């Protein structure tokens, strides 16, 4: 059975304080690892897809990396508008999500 574990469950940062979110996974036949952002009362918003170990993708202050066992979402100099829940998911036979990391960035 595919499994995804995200840590930490919650993270509070000061504006400009860089950090990383972790996503550990086990999957039979990885077809892709996905990062989504979810704001309260909204559906998940797609951020990145990673397909193979060593792959990296960047978008504004976010950078996602992938190894054979885990993925990291690095947040550089975050702003308050980056506050959200960040979800990681793996695609094996179906899309399996972690429980998310709730990020709060204080001004």
């Amino acid at each position, binding site marked *: 059975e595919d499994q995804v574990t995200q840590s930490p469950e919650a993270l509070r940062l000061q504006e400009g304080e860089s950090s990383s979110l972790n996503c550990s996974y086990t999957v039979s036949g990885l077809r892709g690892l996905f990062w989504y952002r979810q704001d309260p*009362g909204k559906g*998940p918003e*797609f951020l990145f897809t990673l397909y193979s170990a060593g792959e990296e993708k960047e978008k504004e202050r976010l950078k996602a990396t992938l190894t054979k066992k885990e993925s990291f979402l690095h947040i550089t100099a975050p702003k308050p508008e980056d506050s959200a829940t960040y979800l990681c998911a793996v695609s094996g036979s179906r899309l399996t999500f*972690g429980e*998310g990391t709730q990020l709060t960035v204080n001004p």
Partner: protein
Amino acid sequence: GAGVSQSPRYKVAKRGQDVALRCDPISGHVSLFWYQQALGQGPEFLTYFQNEAQLDKSGLPSDRFFAERPEGSVSTLKIQRTQQEDSAVYLCASSVQETQYFGPGTRLLVL
């Protein structure tokens, strides 16, 4: 272009009532997925369509849950005889390759 839309956005049902939730996928997207998201949790897979064919319904929690996509576009998730444990956000997603794009969800509250 237009994203995935869902209606209603909010639904309050009395226990035992039947409900129907609608999903309009992104135009041209062959695959359509339904998920259930409890408060503070990640989405959990319910069912998957490729065009009008329901290829996987193994995530549906009971036989009270039924989904259809008769013309390969709009989909409806129906819950019969709702129970309090059915209260959750129901998310729909569509995709053309691996990446799924989500709608805003329907928040269902069963009293």
